[in-house]
């Protein structure tokens, strides 16, 4: 019997010398991130359910009466594959659209869930007074707040990225099996290089989005640490209020709408830098343009070196510091 078990069996106090003196911050951070997923399982469940729903829709389409690859054209029933005779390049491009679409759907769900999570996390622990338990353990406020940002800006995006790949491959496999039976339409094709290029584009777009929206995430944390009640309203109402006041002023006095422009810019500015509005989804004629080709077409270098992007990151750091200070010194328990 080892001494630890013997001590415990005898009901003796824990042995100080047996335990390490410190826990490495990365292990603490890992524990903190796990803790967030225990409390907020919706962070991974919601995108998973959305993905599951997509696969379910696909299966329903496959097994429904109307989707056996037969359509009525001019009063005659015709097999779809006879009408659409897609070339390989188009099928590869269509596959890239599937990759992008699955990721986009999961990401939109994840953005909604993560926003509510960020607004709630520092507020809920004060509301139920569990902050007194968390603060009774040797975890700094800095590491605690950092763990919330890591969850929203690193863990959830990576989970969604991996989940999207898994679901896309599953969807592709189901579709391919269906088309092999002759009932389904062959619209997708596998091309490893094109597939990888598309994933690289998705990853870079995701990385850019995370950096660009980091100040919004940090602002949500500040509101969460600060609000005495209803943090969601504390984010929305001032926005609406300033917007309305500025609009009234603009209508009466004719002043430019600085705030509205700022908000618009912080929402979509980076995508203009990147050149998304000019990105092509369709090539010449009806052919589809592969997303992977955006790697050469979009201005990733320009977007990642944009001054406004990095000013936003600095603002995010400052806001995170404010959230840490609020959690450290706010006392209302």
């Amino acid at each position, binding site marked *: 019997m080892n001494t*630890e*078990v013997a*001590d*415990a*069996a005898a*009901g003796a*106090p*824990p*042995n*100080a010398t*047996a*335990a*390490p*003196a*410190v*826990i490495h911050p990365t*292990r*603490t951070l*890992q*524990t*903190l991130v*796990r*803790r967030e997923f*225990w*409390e907020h399982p919706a962070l991974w469940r919601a995108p998973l359910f959305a993905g599951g729903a997509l696969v379910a829709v696909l299966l329903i389409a496959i097994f429904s009466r109307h989707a056996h690859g037969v359509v009525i054209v001019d009063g005659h029933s015709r097999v779809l594959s006879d009408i659409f005779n897609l070339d390989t390049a188009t099928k590869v491009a269509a596959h890239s659209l599937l990759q992008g679409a699955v990721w986009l759907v999961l990401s939109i769900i994840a953005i909604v869930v993560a926003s509510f999570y960020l607004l709630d996390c520092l507020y809920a*622990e004060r509301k*139920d*007074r*569990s*902050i*007194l*338990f968390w*603060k*009774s*353990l*040797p*975890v*700094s406020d800095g590491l605690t707040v950092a763990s919330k940002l890591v969850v929203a800006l690193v863990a959830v995006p990576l989970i969604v990225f991996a989940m999207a790949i898994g679901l896309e491959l599953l969807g592709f496999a189901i579709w391919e099996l269906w088309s092999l039976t002759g009932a389904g339409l062959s619209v997708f094709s596998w091309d490893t290089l094109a597939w990888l290029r598309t994933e690289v584009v998705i990853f870079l777009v995701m990385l850019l989005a995370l950096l660009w929206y980091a100040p919004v995430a940090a602002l949500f944390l500040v509101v969460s640490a600060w609000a005495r009640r209803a943090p969601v309203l504390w984010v929305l109402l001032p926005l609406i209020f300033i917007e309305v006041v500025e609009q009234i002023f603009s209508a009466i006095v004719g002043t430019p709408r600085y705030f509205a422009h700022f908000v618009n810019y912080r929402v979509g500015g980076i995508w203009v830098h990147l050149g998304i509005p000019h990105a092509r989804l369709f090539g010449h004629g009806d052919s589809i343009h592969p997303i992977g080709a955006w790697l050469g077409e979009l201005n990733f270098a320009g977007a990642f070196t944009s001054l406004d992007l990095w000013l936003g990151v600095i603002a995010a750091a400052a806001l995170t510091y404010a959230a840490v200070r609020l959690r*450290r*010194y706010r*006392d209302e*328990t």
Partner: protein
Amino acid sequence: MTAIVEAKGLTKSFGATRALDGVSFAIETGRIVGLIGPNGAGKTTALKAILGLTPFGGDLKVLGLDPRTQRDELMRDVCFMADVAVLPRWLRVIQALDYCSGVHPRFDRAHAMEFLRKTDIGLNSRVRELSKGMVTQLHLALILAIDARFLVLDEPTLGLDLLYRRKFYDTLLNDYFDKERTILLTTHQVEEVENLFTDVIFLSHGHIALSSSVEDLGSRYVQLTVAAEQAARARALKPFYEREVFGRVAMIFEGHTAAELGALGELRTPSIADLFVAKMQGTATT
């Protein structure tokens, strides 16, 4: 003996109310100190200052560290339990163990498991599914498994029935306390735990009304019970508190020897609860 806590001139105000008004005290290693006071006396504020949970004025050293600036370092050696309701309701027992193992270098998981095995608490239960008494047992299991030098308990047994309260303090004394460790405890149920204390600090309106070791209380204070007709003679010796019990008068004196008072009636050392009431009513009337 070394001081675990050294407080000099602690101040803290909430608006016009002075929750702590120049409070000074020291707590030595290996003591069980009762911080006692009526509601709003500043007990919780004092504990929060010690734990670095609230800003305050004055000098304060806990384990030689300043809780305002060295809180993270301090919490490795200090453990606290605010009251039973602070364990998050969504947390599972097993998650609480995983969490503490993951963040606390001095948490002994086997020890906590051993303690929990003696209870009816299931490892997969969520806190919200446990009774209040069980939540306290869980919290106690976590705390006892942490090898901390200084344990701070703020009304830890509030709202628990007598059986759980008794078990709580028995466990604390038998499984946790030793000469290397120090406990600071606030409670309203003074009568139940007064045998536990080695020292008491009475707080009233942000001031220290009394700070003494329990051994010294016996030599400083004496309770004299006299028949009603003897009361006038005893009163001449200026008790700071008196009350009538079944036609006799109980008085509490400070600084008188048993020899001076013995002739007048029955003498004994006042209980901490009696002394507390005496001190509070004494300060309330002045």
